[in-house]
């Protein structure tokens, strides 16, 4: 789902070098799957920080733990009795987790330990690719199940553009043309007539243009 990469170690070292009690908090959700911020990565980062502080002759306490998810209060609350013991926390969750932790532990310094990249899939181990940009109004039904927002470099709704060359996008020979993928899939499905009617402009009000988004589900709220 959410894909991230570990922040360069030197960046994290720079953030925490002046503290003496640091907690590394992994997230067992999305970032575990892409091996950027799960309990294993938390252990590796904690060990690296301990080596760094020790060789620098500095007494420091570096511990690690991991939560089921950092995007939920109930799991973040599990840190409540630990937090006081640390000067700073490095969260290895995606940007949502880092922010939610910072909201809950308002007076604590919380640093991000990963760079959150996109919503994507595991193509292979160590190879992750973007598939969705969370536009808020999914049009996959009309595009053969291939997202033109995430997979066409220009986010065109009536592609392909003139830059499509032998199945590749003009930005790079390594990037498949999203609209070529759409064409091929619609051909397989026998739905090529889809190309005969232009798509109406997309309703972007559900996307980022309106500022931060919230979902209110009255049927679920208690």
């Amino acid at each position, binding site marked *: 789902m959410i894909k991230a990469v570990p922040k360069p*170690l*030197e960046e994290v*070292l720079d953030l925490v070098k002046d503290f003496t009690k640091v907690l590394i908090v992994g997230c067992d959700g999305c970032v575990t799957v892409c091996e950027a911020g799960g309990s*294993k990565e938390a*252990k*590796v980062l904690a*060990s*690296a*920080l*301990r*080596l*760094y502080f*020790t*060789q*620098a*002759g500095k007494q420091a306490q570096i511990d690690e733990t991991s939560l089921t998810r950092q995007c939920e209060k109930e799991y973040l609350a599990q840190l409540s009795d630990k937090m006081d013991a640390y000067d700073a926390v490095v969260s290895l969750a995606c940007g949502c987790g880092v922010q939610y932790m910072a909201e809950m532990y308002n007076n604590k310094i919380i640093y991000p330990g990963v760079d959150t990249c996109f919503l994507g899939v595991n193509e292979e181990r160590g190879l992750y690719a973007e598939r969705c940009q969370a536009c808020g109004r999914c049009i996959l039904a009309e595009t053969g199940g291939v997202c033109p927002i995430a997979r066409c470099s220009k986010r065109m709704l009536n592609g392909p553009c003139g830059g499509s060359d032998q199945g590749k996008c003009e930005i790079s020979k390594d990037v498949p043309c999203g609209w070529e993928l759409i064409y091929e899939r619609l051909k397989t499905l026998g739905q090529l007539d889809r190309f005969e009617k232009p798509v109406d402009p997309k309703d972007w009000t559900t996307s980022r243009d309106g500022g931060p988004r919230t979902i209110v589900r009255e049927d679920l709220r208690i």
Partner: protein
Amino acid sequence: MRLQYPPSVRIIEVPCTGKVDIMHLLMAFEYGADGVIVMGCLEGDCHYGAGNLYAKKRGNRVKEILDKVGVGGERLAMYNLTSGMGGRFAEIIREITEKVMELGPSPIRVATGKAVRPIAEVTT
């Protein structure tokens, strides 16, 4: 074959180098190892397929970490050999021991007062 090699090494057996985890290597350095060698089968000859190739990648990641945290990636090395290469094994241990002696004790041991620089001459 009674081959001599320096007694300074401690051998930890694993079923395959594929079993060697990043944390095993990092912990060895946390515990104060001056150097660590990962010894696996020849590339292409791992009994489990590609364990030694995974070990190499993990080793490279650990080297990078060691460089960045000031311990030094050159303290970790990986070698590939067969069980029939006892002579080469002893030679590698001698080479590495010399190299580690040149590098001196691990900054971790120095910082924790468990070793001082410079250390005594090596006898191999």
